């Protein structure tokens, strides 16, 4: 049986009618897939930089928070169709989607604060600023912590990484709700609600794996040992973070270190797991992820993430 051209006037049309219906609106291709058209995620939002705040510093700070979310989101999304069961597959994909949404808003906020952070693209390119930042920067321009970029290990590795990541990010965003920048405050207020679910999810799995079988516990302890050296970076301040905290628009992550510790101690204690003794992964002359100093893994991840967008800088998706 062949499928003829759907007749929108027919009483019983085909499944394509819903799509064609939208094409009554000239130039509206949005119905063909989610996100095929571009729009500003901050449309109508007042992005004026607050008084006494350095726009370049605010943008750099938004890139830090945005890149953490973007890179972590990408790593989590690598679990799609690979998780231990369908429910977990969906849970990790949901978590990745929340973080991708946060990244999009934060990168758009960075671009609105200081357009000079956005890579130059060919004249007439339809790529919006947040996509240009995600897909057209080199690894050295990313400001994410290294914890977000290391490759996906086994499931225990992801549980440990997500617990450390979401605990620190939740503590930072909880304070960021009081930012003098109303855009950052709003992004944080929504992010806090999402991260509460992420952290609880990771914490429950940490406990489950620790108190599960000998094998699950062995894997959890191995993962904790491997990931722990990347934890310190999450609660250490880069000068940009110190500066935006002083200006009342950002949060100094070292100030939430004690609070993060309380939560982690709670999870470790109930799980019967000792705090690892390994020290922090060294930077290079004090430079770490926040300075653009990354592991080799980020370049490889970006190569995969960016290849299609870079091949078609004038493409419409």
């Amino acid at each position, binding site marked *: 049986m062949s499928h003829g051209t759907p007749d929108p006037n027919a009483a019983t049309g085909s499944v394509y009618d819903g799509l064609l219906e*939208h094409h*009554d*609106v000239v130039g*509206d291709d*949005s*119905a063909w897939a*989610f*996100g095929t*058209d571009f*729009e*500003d*995620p*901050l*449309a*109508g*939002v007042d992005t004026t930089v607050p008084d006494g705040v350095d726009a370049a510093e605010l943008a750099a700070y938004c890139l830090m928070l945005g890149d953490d979310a973007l890179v972590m989101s990408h790593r989590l999304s690598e679990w799609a169709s690979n998780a231990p069961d369908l*429910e*977990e597959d*969906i*849970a990790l*994909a*949901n*978590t990745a*989607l*929340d*973080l991708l*949404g*946060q990244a*999009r*808003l934060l990168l758009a906020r960075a671009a609105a604060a200081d357009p000079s952070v956005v890579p130059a693209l060919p004249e007439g390119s339809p790529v919006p600023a947040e996509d240009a930042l995600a897909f057209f920067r080199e690894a050295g321009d990313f400001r994410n912590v290294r914890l977000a970029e290391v490759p996906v290990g086994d499931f225990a590795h992801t549980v440990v990484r997500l617990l450390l990541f979401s605990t620190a990010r*939740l*503590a930072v965003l*909880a304070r960021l*709700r*009081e930012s003098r920048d*109303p*855009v950052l*405050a*709003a*992004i944080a*207020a*929504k*992010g*806090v*609600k*999402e991260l*509460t*679910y992420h*952290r*609880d*999810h990771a*914490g*429950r799995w940490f*406990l489950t794996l620790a108190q599960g079988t000998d094998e699950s516990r062995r894997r959890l302890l191995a993962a904790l040992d491997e990931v722990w050296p990347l934890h310190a970076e999450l609660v250490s301040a880069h000068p940009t973070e110190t500066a935006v905290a002083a200006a009342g628009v950002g949060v100094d992550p070292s100030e939430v270190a004690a*609070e993060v510790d*309380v*939560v982690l101690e*709670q*999870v470790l204690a*109930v799980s019967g797991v000792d705090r690892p003794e390994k020290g922090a992964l060294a930077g290079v002359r004090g430079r770490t992820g926040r300075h653009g100093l990354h592991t080799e893994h980020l370049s490889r991840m970006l190569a995969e993430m960016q290849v299609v967008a870079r091949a078609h800088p004038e493409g419409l998706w």
Partner: protein
Amino acid sequence: MVTTLAPARDVAAEVTDPEMPMLTLEDLGVLRDVREHADDPRRVTVTITPTYSGCPAMATMRDDLVRRLREAGYDPTVEVSLSPAWSSDWITERGRQALRDHGLSAPGPAGPAAGGVGGVGGAGPVPLTLLPVRRAITCPHCGSAATAVTSEFGATACKALYRCTDCLEPFEHVKEI
């Protein structure tokens, strides 16, 4: 020729959510404002707010609003409002009934301050919850209170997966946030 347009608010209020089409954007609490411009009665600015940061339905909501308002004779602009952040508490009673009528469980009060779960109360650190979330919800199929959570994450960002341990049917619960 004199034409009378249906009030823009009424037109926008009828647009449904693309992922939960039993709910209008108004019932979902996503439609924040519909403003007709005094200088040009055909121009209208609609403000919507995302349920979740990464909600992939935002573009479709916007396009549906634009399409319906244009059909009604308006020249619409859709803007985004991020603050205050959307809460499941904003789903109207009519919306909750529509969810139940379609086999979905409606959210309880959000946030510990409201005696609920999932949301966040005031300022300060957010408490960790390592035990499974306890919600007093009933099966939308058989009405039994014997329900168990399968996963806090479902097919869309706003839903958790549940099952009824009496009739054994799975169902979705719109999460508190």
